[in-house]
């Protein structure tokens, strides 16, 4: 492989000809044109900016970022970090960003899993299965997402009230207030255990790489699971035990108007997640199907001739090759999930758009508010793109 060696052609510079200060010199003209273009674009930008600032000033519309420090006074229903209406707008916006990330990340994972399964099923030899999946894909892709979200939200609101909640197991309640699940009180040692588990996961990854490398060298397969269990389970559990093994169950129970305690999946979050997942899975299914079809029939036949069963042919031979066709369009689906999550405002899930809109309404600072929304989406989208590009180049290189 030569990707680390520098191509000798790039090592030497072309011979430099001295600049002639004349219009006849192509390079001089080039430089002048470039300065002109940059200058014009720069002055237009400056004019737009100062004009806007001037107009805002004339119309007495507040500007600046001072509002971020002021008390928000907004009620927010769901938050991943502690939040109270007496907190600042900045805090409220952070809560919004995390809410967006929460639904986007979980949505991406679920839509990918569901979409892949559907894409494979659509190619099934079973007439009924492929037709049913085909119809599903057609329907979810043709109906506007907003309509689907409102549909799921209305459906979840149609569940019985808290007093008549569906109650399949201890501490599990399904009602129009959402899904309630038993949990336990989260304390300091749990944070440590979780951290150790994450470190263990990273450790397992490197352990696996090392094991693979050795297998390449001597052909001996090595079991990963004993080390994985120790790193991801035994060590965290041991640490938790050593720290006093705190465990207080937190079982939801109906008190007054509502359930208290336990974990809550709100109807707003659930409807949004469901809508985004089912909708995007339809598109992902088509991408996966196209990817699989792009792998030539010969590959199937060759693998089957080796005696591999169909399922393994798919997993070991076809999908890895299909991935190269699948990844690039997949990136845009992931971006779509993130951007579409802004429809949340229609069904009362307080994502960054909802909170930034309210902020700009309350403070009157529309330009700042929109700028915040843009920066947040740009950052998330670029991160997804960068990650997917990295992943794409990684799988593209595994060619021997």
């Amino acid at each position, binding site marked *: 492989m030569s990707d680390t060696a520098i191509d000798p052609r790039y090592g030497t510079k072309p011979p430099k000809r001295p600049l002639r200060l004349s219009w006849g010199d192509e390079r001089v003209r080039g430089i002048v044109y470039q300065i002109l273009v940059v200058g014009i674009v720069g002055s237009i930008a400056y004019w737009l900016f100062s004009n806007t600032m001037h107009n805002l000033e004339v*119309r*007495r*519309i507040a500007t600046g970022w001072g509002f971020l420090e002021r008390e928000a006074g907004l*009620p*927010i229903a769901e938050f991943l970090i502690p939040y109270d209406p007496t907190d600042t707008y900045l805090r409220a916006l952070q809560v919004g960003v995390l809410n967006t990330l929460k639904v986007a990340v979980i949505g991406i994972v679920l839509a990918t899993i569901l979409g892949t399964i559907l894409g494979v099923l659509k190619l099934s030899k079973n007439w009924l299965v492929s037709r049913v999946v085909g119809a599903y894909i057609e329907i979810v892709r043709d109906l506007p997402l907003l309509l689907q979200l*409102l549909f799921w939200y209305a459906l979840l609101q149609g569940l019985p009230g808290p007093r008549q909640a569906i109650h399949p197991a201890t501490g599990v309640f399904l009602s129009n207030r959402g899904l309630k699940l038993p949990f336990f009180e989260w304390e300091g040692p749990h944070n440590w255990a979780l951290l150790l588990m994450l470190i263990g996961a990273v450790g397992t990854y490197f352990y696996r790489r090392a094991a693979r490398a050795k297998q390449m060298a001597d052909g001996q397969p090595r079991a990963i699971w004993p080390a994985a269990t120790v790193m991801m389970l035994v060590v965290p559990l041991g640490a938790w035990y050593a720290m006093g093994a705190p465990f207080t169950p937190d079982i939801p129970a109906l008190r007054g108007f*509502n359930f208290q305690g336990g974990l809550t999946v709100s109807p707003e979050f659930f409807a949004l997640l469901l809508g985004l997942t089912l909708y995007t899975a339809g598109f992902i299914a088509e991408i996966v199907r196209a990817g699989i079809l792009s792998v030539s029939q010969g590959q199937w036949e060759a693998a089957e001739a080796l005696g591999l069963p169909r399922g393994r042919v798919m997993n070991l031979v076809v999908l890895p090759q299909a991935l190269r066709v699948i990844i690039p369009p997949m990136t845009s689906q992931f971006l779509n999930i993130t951007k579409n999550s802004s429809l949340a405002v229609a069904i*009362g899930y307080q994502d960054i758009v909802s909170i930034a*809109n309210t902020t700009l309404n309350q403070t009157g600072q529309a330009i700042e508010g929109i700028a915040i929304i843009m920066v947040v989406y740009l950052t998330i989208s670029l991160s997804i793109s960068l990650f997917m590009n990295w992943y794409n180049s990684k799988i593209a290189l595994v060619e021997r």
Partner: protein
Amino acid sequence: MIDTIRARGQLLCGVSTGLAGFAQPNSQGVWAGFDVDYCRAVAIAIFGTEQNRVRYVPTTAQVRFTALQSGEVDMLSRNTTWTLSRDTSLGLDFTATNFYDGQGFMVKRSLGVTAARQLDGATICVQPGTTTEQNLADWARSVRVNIRPVVIERLEDNIAAYLAGRCDAYTTDVSGLAASRSAQQVPADHVILPDVISKEPLGVLVRHGDQRFADLVRWVHFGLLAAEEFGITAENAAGLATTDNRPEVQRILGRTGGLGQMMGVDNAWMLNVIRTLGNYGEISTRNLAPLGLQRGPNALWTTPGGLQYAPPFR
């Protein structure tokens, strides 16, 4: 601004997306309501008639200020509360309070709640971008009641969530509660709790910087009040314009004084408005009495408890 509107031939008026008694299109698509009548009144003052002279732009609570700031509408007549921060930092001006209101709660009768304090632990539906959501948070904090908000942008989705039982209570201005309640199949199934947790002086807004237009909108409101005070109605306005010899009535109806000219419109501006729409009391009775709303603080100052007061027309 008045010239711009005249040149355009139409007044662009921001109203709510549909609130019975305040702004709602009827079955023929014709907008009607208290807030709508203010759009019509200003259009009549400028054009002498309202026929095809108003374009209604429905706005949610969330987008209303941006719509006015950006020039999408000329004025906002949309149950909007006058607050200090809105008056100073939005680049907008409130003209006058045309409806004194306050925030309340509505619950289903079957819930058995009779006072707001009993809502501890309840889930409450509320629209974002309103004073309502901020008051709710303030109130919960000051009376130490725990509430869970459900914040949905569109009014009708909010009501749907409340009706479906997603929320135990719905909160907004009492007038808005009465409007939504009256639109239900069985209004008596819903109770508006007696507690009023805030002051909500509602009024018409215009963009900051055009004082002439602001003056006109403000004085149209005062004209409606003065008409009620002097007993000028839709029916008798034309007659009084020639026969009444009370000096202030003559000035309001444009026979003397040239008040319209001072504002940049025809001297018959208020005569035309009252002839078409009636006075403040008539507008109020036509639109709000069906909701079961009492005049209360919105009675004229001459009635005990009334706050509506017009400065002199001279």
